[in-house]
């Protein structure tokens, strides 16, 4: 099992660094899955995580100048690692002016992801900083826990309002309540509501647009027969929503959410090279 990668381009390094910063804000530990073409940061929706699930996918070619991996076996050319993303994000934080960053999977005393940053220096040789991030190798028999979650059978799918606006609204609501209701309909309307003993606050968004989803079997899902004005809603933990919004460092190309009434909200944030899906279950 081998993994070696290198980033030389500063813009790519910056971009990758921002992705790791976002992931670090969403999960304390997560799974890093490496395949020949892609990297994934995965959080499976176990009870321990509060039922939250995350699936982030990157095409390695968009970030790395060199990328070589050899999986566990020829038929299973993948590597699954348990990692603390905060470590990765910290290692890359001070690499902003690096000449090159190399990442390698090693096992000197225990499995580690070694991030070696080559920095310019005034002296004849470059300054080298290495960060050994301890990782856990996840054996093949557990890989099933980390399969890509399917898009839920949602009641409403809607584009999100500007994330910055949404973030500031949610941040203020967080001070008043622990849970927030997200509701939306197929007419492009979304409301964010909180309700406490003292106060109810609702923020209304209009004209958001609803993404078209082609159904697989030709016949439309339940969403099609829905009354356009009728709201699908779910009450979720406001902190989780705030974490998702606060972690976004770059505006996504597309941002939408799928609501399964009273069950789950599925957020999809798409950038050019990165896609992030985040599942927040409804509170009981």
């Amino acid at each position, binding site marked *: 099992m081998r993994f070696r990668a290198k980033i030389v381009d500063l813009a790519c390094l910056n971009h990758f660094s921002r992705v790791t910063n976002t992931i670090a804000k969403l999960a304390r530990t997560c799974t890093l899955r490496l395949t020949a073409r892609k990297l994934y940061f995965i959080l499976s929706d176990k009870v321990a995580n509060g039922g939250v699930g995350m699936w982030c996918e990157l095409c390695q070619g968009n970030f790395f100048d060199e990328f070589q991996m050899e999986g566990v076996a020829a038929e299973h050319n993948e590597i699954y690692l348990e990692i603390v993303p905060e470590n990765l994000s910290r290692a890359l934080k001070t690499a902003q002016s690096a000449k090159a960053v190399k990442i390698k999977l090693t096992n000197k005393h225990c499995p580690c992801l070694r991030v070696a940053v080559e920095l310019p*220096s005034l002296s004849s040789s470059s300054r080298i900083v290495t960060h050994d991030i301890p990782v856990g190798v996840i054996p093949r028999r557990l890989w099933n826990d980390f399969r890509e979650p399917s898009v839920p059978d949602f009641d409403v799918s809607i584009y999100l309002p500007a994330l910055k606006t949404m973030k500031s609204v949610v941040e203020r609501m967080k001070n008043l309540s622990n849970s927030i209701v997200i509701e939306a309909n197929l007419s492009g309307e979304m409301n964010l509501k909180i309700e406490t003993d003292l106060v109810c606050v609702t923020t209304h968004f209009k004209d958001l647009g609803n993404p078209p989803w082609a159904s697989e079997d030709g016949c439309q899902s339940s969403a099609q027969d829905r009354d356009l004005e009728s709201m699908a809603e779910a009450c979720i933990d406001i902190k989780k929503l705030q974490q998702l919004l606060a972690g976004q460092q770059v505006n996504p190309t597309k941002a939408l959410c799928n609501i399964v009434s009273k069950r789950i909200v599925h957020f999809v944030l798409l950038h050019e090279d990165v896609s992030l899906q985040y599942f927040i279950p409804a509170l009981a």
Partner: protein
Amino acid sequence: LSLRAVNSSRSAFASFLLAPLFFQLYEAGGGRHDGELCRCKVLMKSFLGVFRSLPSLEKTVEKCLILLKPRSSRLVVQLHCKHGVTKTHNLAFQECERLQAVFDTQSYSSSLCAPARVLADAVVHFAPTLAEVTLGAGPGDKISLRNYVEDEAEANKTMVTELWLAEDEFQAVAVTPGSQITFCLKELRGLLTFAEASNLPLTIHYDVPGRPVVFTLDDAVLEVHLVLATLSDLESSLQRPPTNNVSNLAAPSDDFADDLESYMIALETSTDQEASGVPPSPTFPLRTQRPAESNQEEEEEDEDEAAVPGTPPHKKFRSLFFGSVLTPGEPGPAPTQEVLAEDSEGEY
């Protein structure tokens, strides 16, 4: 004028000696007795409170007057600001005995000198909350800085960051190959900020683990010393040959021992049986800790007290000097990270 402080665990001591020329006006008026130095201590919080916001001070304060009123036991700090505003702070002081750390950089085996910038840039790679860091002289004429991980349990979960500086980044290097010391980075950060701001090169003197490390800044009107206790290294104090130490500081190379194949095979076979000889996932085989076992308890203080005299060394601080802060050194490594600065007892 000397300003000195020691931390509550007595593992860090700092002293700033300011020559009269540092000030616009300097009058070392007599204390109560003729020729006697005045020595007092002031609550840090109160003193810092006067200089709280540096940016606003720089904008509004034209002159700062500091004077001692022994009769009322007050240290007066008067800030003469713009627009005719004068702020006067009266801080209560207490007379106190001399505070002086015992150290002797002349007897130290290793020293380094670098522009503050180099060191400040180096420590930026470590987490701001990091406590201890290990400084070492590695092979290939490189100086390394590495975060110190305290115990075995943490070793498998903590990220280890290591930074290598080439010798030519320093202005002077005279180190024992393979030497290393571990000290508290947090205590150094303050001095680094000051050094960068005043654009002075920083000199580091160190010896064997256990003996304090001394950071010095020197200039025509200012002499600064920061003395930090270092982690003692029981095993290396037992005359290990230098080569063994060197092997602990392997220089970075591209060819890492890459044992993951065998590790994974071992892991895979464990799916068939609960093999006890195989490292279970995701716990990892225990990392072999560096031979240095830290010994941080304050042990046998009494014994130490015998080695370090309780009575003050003879060298006295006259007010106007630049001279060496050094005291006749006490040879013999202190085996533990503890008391450096002895309160001198009695008068001299």
